């Protein structure tokens, strides 16, 4: 990790225990001149318990900042406004040589916003991605009790992408543990072809299996789809995405694996001048890398679908197990952006 004199940290406040983990670990060595935490809690998870835990996280990061002499700021943003995260990141990028982006507790629209902002940053701008992996995600051994969905957003990953030729759109589905979220998303738009990407974590095979099991109905349905008509036949002839296929990537090789899959999808979409739709429900670090790759290599046709939940369960994640970081230059190189 580089530590130039003028660097900033941008993360998100949350009721999750991991909200302060990356800052706690990185700040003593990184020499940040500023830290900004996006505070979206009141629009995402209202309630006394969540508020109290967010305040605890704020106290922790404030204390670290005071101890190190780093100004720590709190920015009120809307939980599901991609633009809020984009503006804040662009502002910090303009003012600092390096910005560390901690996606651990950002909402997915914020993660998508951060990825698209990083993708269009000038080549001299420098950023790094960091992510705190929790020990577990709530009570996964209990039947999932959804808290409901209030809307579904169609988000552009770059400025003014096209949505023409939607009939041959290609999807990238990153399944998560909330399978009903995927159902709502595919009800919003259902590409006839695409790739379902499973992320294999070395020490958590149980979560991989659980995710696969919970999304089984949706993925089985997708694998039965075929792009219709002559375009469909042409697609099968030249590209592997005449329908939906499944591919796995290892968490240890996540960036390279996702870059390779995204490259194949983009080649297909470009050939048919079709949009690519990201279904961003897997690990946030995978969501960031995929969104970044799409925004960097196919800004003219990259989109994401995000169903907005009513609220989030307070046991959304447990603790913080490890910290993963990657330099922006490394991600850009693997994606083929630079």
């Amino acid at each position, binding site marked *: 990790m580089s530590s130039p004199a003028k660097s900033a940290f941008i993360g998100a406040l949350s009721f999750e225990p991991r909200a302060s983990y990356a800052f706690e670990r990185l700040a003593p060595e990184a020499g940040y001149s500023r830290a900004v935490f996006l505070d979206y809690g009141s629009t995402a998870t209202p309630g006394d318990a969540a508020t109290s835990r967010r305040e605890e996280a704020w106290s922790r990061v404030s204390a670290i900042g005071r101890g190190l002499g780093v100004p720590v700021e709190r920015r009120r943003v809307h939980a599901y406004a991609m633009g809020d995260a984009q503006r804040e990141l662009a502002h910090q990028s303009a003012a600092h040589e390096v910005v560390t982006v901690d996606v651990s507790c950002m909402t997915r629209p914020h993660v998508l916003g951060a990825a698209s902002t990083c993708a269009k940053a000038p080549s001299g701008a420098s950023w790094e991605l960091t992510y705190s992996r929790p020990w577990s*995600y709530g009570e996964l*051994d209990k039947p999932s009790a959804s808290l409901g969905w209030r809307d579904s957003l169609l988000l552009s990953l770059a400025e003014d992408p096209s949505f023409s030729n939607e009939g041959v759109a290609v999807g990238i589905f990153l399944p998560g543990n909330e399978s009903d979220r995927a159902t709502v998303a595919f009800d919003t738009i259902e590409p006839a072809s695409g790739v379902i990407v499973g992320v*294999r974590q070395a020490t958590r*095979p149980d979560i991989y299996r659980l995710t696969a*099991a919970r999304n089984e109905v949706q993925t089985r349905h997708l694998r039965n789809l075929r792009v219709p008509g002559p375009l469909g036949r042409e697609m099968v002839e030249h590209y592997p995405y005449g329908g939906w296929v499944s591919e796995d990537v290892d968490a240890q090789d996540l960036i390279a694996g996702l870059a390779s899959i995204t490259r194949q999808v983009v080649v297909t979409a470009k050939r048919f001048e079709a949009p690519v739709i990201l279904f961003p429900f897997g690990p946030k670090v995978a969501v960031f890398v995929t969104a970044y790759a799409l925004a960097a290599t196919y800004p003219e046709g990259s989109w994401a679908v995000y169903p907005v939940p009513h609220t989030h369960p307070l046991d959304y994640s*447990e603790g913080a197990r490890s910290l993963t970081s990657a330099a922006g230059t490394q991600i850009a190189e693997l994606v083929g952006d630079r």
Partner: protein
Amino acid sequence: MNDPGSRRFRDELEDKLGDLNVVLTTGQVEPGVDWAPTVRNRIKAAKIFVADLSGPSKEVLFELGFAGNKDLFPLVESNGHREQLPRWVTSKQCETFGDGRVAQVAEAIARRLTAKPGSAARPTPVPGLLAWVTGRDASWADEARNKTRLMCQEIGMEFAEHFENDLESPEDLQNVLRASIMVGVIDGGRQDYCVHFLLGDIVARTRAGAGTGRKQSVARRGYALLPNGTDPEGLLADSVRRISRRVVMQTTPERLRTDLGGAFDSYRNLLKDSYP
């Protein structure tokens, strides 16, 4: 507890709670009844687990571990008894019951029954994590520890060593409680109490992993590691010695590698089934 003071307190508490329409079940078992599972079933059925930690007794620490996510009401006879407890236990407020405080304790327990549970839930155990719990003076186990660490590396399992002296609070225990495999060094040191507590947790929460489907979790295993040739009598609580070897195993440095084989095979199979 077999201490006369503790027994007397228990009898008086039973009477006082009876007056408040609260049923107190104890560790007393009728002759001819298999006592270990009976006591554990009583703990499972209780709403509040009242633990007399005076002593402390390894048996009670094991039961405290077994109580899992129950609402806990820890007690000691006096402040002197509290000072003898490990630090990770005393970070929770312990009431004293000496000096005729039975009525106050009974009322506090009755109030707790109608209040919201105060204990934080224990963390979810995860597969692929081995916790080695030891004391600063247990160098006799170093070679076994190094071999176990290597075994973990070979299979891609995380190895985490914890010194009892560093465990200051229940929060410090969180990562130990997540382990699917726990090897506890037992040699009469302070860490023995912690190991008993953790073995109790393993007996109560027997699976590690997410999901209820087939092959989505592994069985948790506890290992009480004793010096070669040591008699476990006196070092291990009677309850621990009566638990199935499939859950908790007494072992020695000589046998540890072999004894760990089954637990490692389970994890290897989970990996193989998940990522063929």
